[in-house]
């Protein structure tokens, strides 16, 4: 079962190479208040945004960073048929960064004249590839799927980049997005601003319209892109790139992906 989930994830993560699946976290709300508000988060892989109609997203790589920069656990974790769920009590004032960080490998090889493929964890690579495999090609992958929620006023401490893979850093705060306003974000690859990243941005509720109405954007020399929000809603952003900075000896390249969910509020 676990392997099945993992392979489903891998399919989803390489979405831009031909599959239409979208991986996402969707918080119940993004701006909260009160003595100790809770947010509940859905995690899934689907064709449509944000509907549970394909696969749950595994929660093994769940990393929640609190406003003080420390990590906290997701509560009430559950993996269902079509979605995973967890809750986050917001004990602190400020912004929480909620992420699922996945690492692993894709591999292809030949055995007895047959072309075979493998997807799994880095640890399982050596065990699973047969000794008589030839023409082995290994690609490391590192994916980050995230969203942001704020209790009270937005803060930046939890949004400090880790320097690994694709990450988004705020120019505009991700929990301060409003219709009619322009927001700017910077994308980093391995901690450095990344020029020329191609971004796809889609507003949720795709089931209720005829087209995806996706917006394509590209980062500039500072790794920045801007968007002016025309309608309120939950938005999904996705980008990916490749590099050679592998940590797996057999891998020749590394595939990096990033997806995030933002809430845009009406004025």
């Amino acid at each position: 079962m676990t392997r099945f989930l993992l392979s489903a994830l891998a399919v989803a993560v390489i979405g831009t190479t031909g599959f239409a699946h979208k991986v996402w976290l969707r918080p119940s709300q993004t701006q909260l208040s009160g003595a100790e508000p809770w947010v509940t988060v859905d995690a899934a892989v689907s064709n449509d945004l944000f509907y549970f109609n394909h696969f749950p997203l595994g929660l093994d790589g769940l990393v929640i960073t609190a406003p003080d920069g420390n990590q906290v656990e997701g509560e009430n974790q559950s993996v269902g048929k079509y979605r995973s769920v967890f809750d986050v009590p917001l004990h602190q004032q400020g912004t929480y960064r909620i992420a699922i960080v996945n690492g692993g490998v894709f591999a292809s090889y030949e055995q007895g004249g047959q072309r075979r493929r493998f997807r799994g964890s880095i640890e399982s690579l050596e065990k699973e590839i047969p000794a008589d495999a030839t023409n082995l090609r290994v690609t490391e992958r590192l994916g980050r799927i995230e969203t942001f929620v704020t209790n009270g006023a937005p803060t930046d401490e939890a949004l400090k980049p880790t320097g690994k893979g694709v990450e988004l850093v705020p120019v505009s705060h991700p929990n301060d997005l409003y219709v009619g306003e322009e927001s700017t974000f910077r994308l980093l690859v391995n901690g450095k601003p990344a020029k020329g990243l191609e971004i796809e941005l889609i507003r949720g509720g795709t089931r209720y319209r005829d087209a995806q109405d996706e917006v394509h954007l590209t980062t500039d020399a500072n790794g920045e892109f801007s968007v002016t929000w025309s309608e309120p809603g939950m938005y999904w952003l996705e980008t990916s790139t490749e590099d050679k900075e592998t940590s797996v000896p057999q891998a020749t390249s590394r595939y990096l992906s990033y997806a995030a969910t933002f809430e845009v509020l009406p004025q």
Partner: protein
Amino acid sequence: MKQLFLLALMSVAVSSVSADDPPPRIEVSVNIPRLNVSEYHRPYVAVWIQDKNRKVVANLAVWYQIRGNNKDEGTKWLPDLRQWWRRSGRSLDHPVDGVSGATRPAGEHTLQFTGDEKRFANMRRGDYELVVEAAREVGGREMVQIPFSWPPTKTSTQTQSGETELGDVSLTIR
């Protein structure tokens, strides 16, 4: 004590603008309509003054559910006052002295202030806007805005009316 002294200083600074004249008086009346709905909840209401950049310069009132089993329970819904929450509410400690109050029933509610109060200390000469925002559980949200100039040169009353969650809102400055 030191704060009190500062306060007194600030009041002097504001009132000295108009020399020997008494400080202006500000009166806001907010009408909460009686709605014929099956499940009626009193609205959350915020009243503030903002400048041309929509920056809040003075908070006049925020009415929300203060009583209850849990003291802070009602603050959970404060972000429903979307504009006020973003411009001001989210960076305040609740309850706010002299601003926070319990929700009000349908009818007319009057707020009175004098221009030398601490809350108006940041109001320089210029154009401002009174904003009243109301949001109701299982109901709607509405904002009413009234522009005015400060300090007042003569007594004036302006009235704007909401369509759903707010009735007449009046601002009198004298």
